């Protein structure tokens, strides 16, 4: 197990070794701490600071490789707290990869390798003393295809609480999460029914409820509405806007209108994993700096 000190500055070999070293034991390891992602070093950000608008998530010269293929190329951006940040771009531009870097889901892919820094509340999540399991308990995730567990609705929402050994007020927390996900009224009488019996849109809202039940700080959404019909989509969009009052939401989407409707900030990735422009959503859609971005948004390219 080599120490992971040199991820930012030099050769790929060191980074590979360090990355595999840190990724292999991860999922099996018990969380080092419950309410703090790092050990030994306290995080510098607290509630008052984040209220002042300090970025919750900040990437600095982030590169991601899958084997020899570079998926993210030198991306630096700052995600503000309690807002919706959208990431748009053509397929294969690395926006999903970036999203999965934030909660280190890329650790599960053997060939993935990360260089540069990705800071969550000021702490680089790729530091050696960060337990990705503990990190993921602070950063919820919603996937492209609704993937509720083949368990009851109740057990799905309570899953995050159970795995964190939270056994106080589970019923209340499940109800709160389902209410926030605008699903409570539809399922309150069938909490012990299988989650797989719900419709696709309901399943996705259930996944959102599952993600917010343990009360994370950030919610990552990977094209959450792309597999849903327009009505279900609009429900999810309303939901995202509401969630942004309390959570930092980062959403990847292929749907330009969706990004324009719901997001406060928009990041445009173009081919090669390059972040071309990152700014207020209004500015991106009305007056982008780069011609390539304008071409993409207006549909001339991609």
């Amino acid at each position, binding site marked *: 197990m080599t120490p992971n000190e040199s991820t930012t500055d030099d050769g790929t070999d060191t980074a590979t070794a360090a990355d595999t070293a840190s990724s292999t034991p991860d*999922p099996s390891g018990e*969380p080092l701490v419950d309410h703090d992602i790092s050990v030994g070093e306290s995080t510098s950000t607290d509630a008052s600071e984040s209220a002042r608008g300090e970025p919750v998530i900040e990437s600095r010269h982030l590169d991601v490789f899958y084997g020899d293929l570079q998926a993210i190329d030198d991306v630096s951006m700052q995600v503000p707290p309690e807002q919706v940040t959208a990431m748009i771009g053509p397929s294969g531009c690395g926006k999903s990869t970036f999203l999965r870097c934030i909660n280190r*889901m890329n650790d599960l892919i053997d060939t993935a390798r990360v260089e540069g820094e990705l800071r969550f509340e000021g702490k680089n999540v790729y530091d050696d003393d960060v337990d990705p399991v503990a990190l993921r*308990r602070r950063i919820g995730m919603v*996937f492209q295809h609704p993937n509720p567990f083949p368990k009851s609705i109740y057990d799905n929402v309570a899953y995050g609480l159970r795995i964190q050994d939270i056994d106080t007020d589970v019923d209340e927390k499940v109800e709160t999460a389902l209410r926030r996900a605008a699903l409570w009224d539809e399922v309150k009488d069938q909490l012990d029914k299988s989650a797989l019996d719900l419709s696709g849109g309901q399943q996705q809202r259930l996944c959102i409820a599952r993600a917010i039940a343990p009360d994370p700080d950030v919610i990552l959404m990977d094209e959450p509405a792309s597999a849903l019909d327009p009505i279900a989509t609009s429900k999810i969009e309303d939901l995202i806007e509401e969630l942004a009052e309390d959570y930092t939401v980062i959403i990847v989407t292929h749907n330009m209108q969706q990004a324009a409707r719901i997001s406060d900030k928009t990041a445009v990735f173009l081919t090669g994993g390059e972040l071309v422009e990152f700014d207020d959503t209004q500015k991106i859609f009305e007056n982008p700096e780069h011609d390539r971005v304008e071409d993409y948004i207006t549909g001339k390219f991609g």
Partner: protein
Amino acid sequence: MATGDAQHDWASEASQVGRTQGRLFELLCLVATAAGIVSVMILLAFVALDAFRPLSADPGWHLVFFLTLVAPLSALGVWFYRSDEPAGEVAYVTAGLPVVGLLVAGGFIVIFAELLSVVEWFALVVSAAVAVAVVVAHGRLRPQAALERLAVMLLAPVVSLYGVPPVAFNRLVNQFAAATGLPVELTVRYIGLREAILKLPFVPADWLMLLATLTLPVAAAAGLFTARRRESRRDGAVLAAGVSLGAAVGAVAGPLVGIGAEAWVILATFILPPLAVYVEGVVRRSEGTAGLVFPVVAIGGTLVGAALVQALGFAGPEPWLDWGFLTSAHSRTPAEAGIYPTLVGSVMMIVVIVLSTFPVGIGAAIYLEEYAPSTGWTGKLVTLIEINISNLAGVPSVVYGLLGLALFIRILTWPQGTVIVGGLAVGLLILPIVIISAQEAIRSVPDSYRQASYGMGATRWQTIRQVVLPEATPGILTGTILALGRAIGETAPLLMVGVAASIRLAPNGFFDLYSAMPRQIFSWSSELDPAFRHGVLAAGVITLLAVLLVMNATAIIIRNKYQRDH
């Protein structure tokens, strides 16, 4: 007409797409299917004809039973199929449940006849229950003391079941002391609850002990199930009390009609509760209640038919496969030969196989699928191991027999021909099959479930325990039970590890000499007397197939139950 053809040239006679090849292929597939099924059916028909010898009966006997039993049941079956399908399912289950119960009860009767006496069972169950009660009580009283809890969980069963210190521990220490010359000898020990019960100067009657340790738990479980389903504690209590009472009354009344009190208690325990729960459910739903007629007609038809045959003096068939065959040992005279000791031997061998193969095989499958690295040189090593496991599944069984011979008998110097050696040798044989089928089941769990679980911040262990395994269990169980079906029919490894051709007495323990059904069948096939080769052998084959069928049916039921749950 010419213009019409010109407009719709895709709809004319000449433009039909050729389908000859496709039709021919379909036909060939059909022939292949039929050839396989028909040849197996013919073989089974021949064996069944030899085993049951229906032609040895009077034609009148057949006619009577056709009229009283076969015709009414067939008519009912057709009627259910045509107009009342739920009733058909009810009929099927109510007729099947007692058969399953009978098999389980038969298993317990054999256990008490061969393996342990009723009082030993009683002592075992009572002391185990006390140990569990102590652990639970401790959990209630001191829920916070985790370390203490662990100690209680480890110590309570030991104290209750084995005493302090256990005999084996004393013996080990004394042996060690004798070998090293240390002046230590452990003589003092306090006996556990189990031994205390065994040493009691008087014990209750056997059937009372069975009632307490077998009927009451089963009745309580059935009662709890009903109470939860109907959300009424009263109904559950009534059911549990009724079952216990039925068993108790029957135990007193049973000997009057020639059924031993113990046998009655066991039979009642495993037939009454499931039937009561099921019939109660059917009556409450009032769906398919007509199906309840089926078992009544079956029993009534049999009784009426038997009475008529007796009155009219028709002789029944003289099958090789009868009660005597199932309950007696091999004999030099074909008419007295039976399969009982080998049946018991086969079942005990299956127990050894299950206990040895399932934990190892399923554990290996979980490791290979969930933990093993997939890249780098370790990943290559894992791939190599997986390829080898696949190949091991195809290694001839006689080679595994040789392995068993070398490993257990030559190296470990265990006595040859014992249950444990035979079971482990056959266990090695099905281990690769168990691993592969369990791997398949685990692999079929969608990756999106794992992603979701990891995304929630679950550790790998939590993901496997709470998401992967529950989803993979039905597949793992079906695959492994089907592998057991292969194990029970294996003969070659048994020959190699010196399993006896036939034995007089069923094994009383896992280190006893035994013989298994396929081994016995094989030895019958080389008897000089044609009655052995044609009659007794066929009866043995049918018995073996019946056991196999029961196991496969279990696999299917388990799979269906899990699939319905999801």
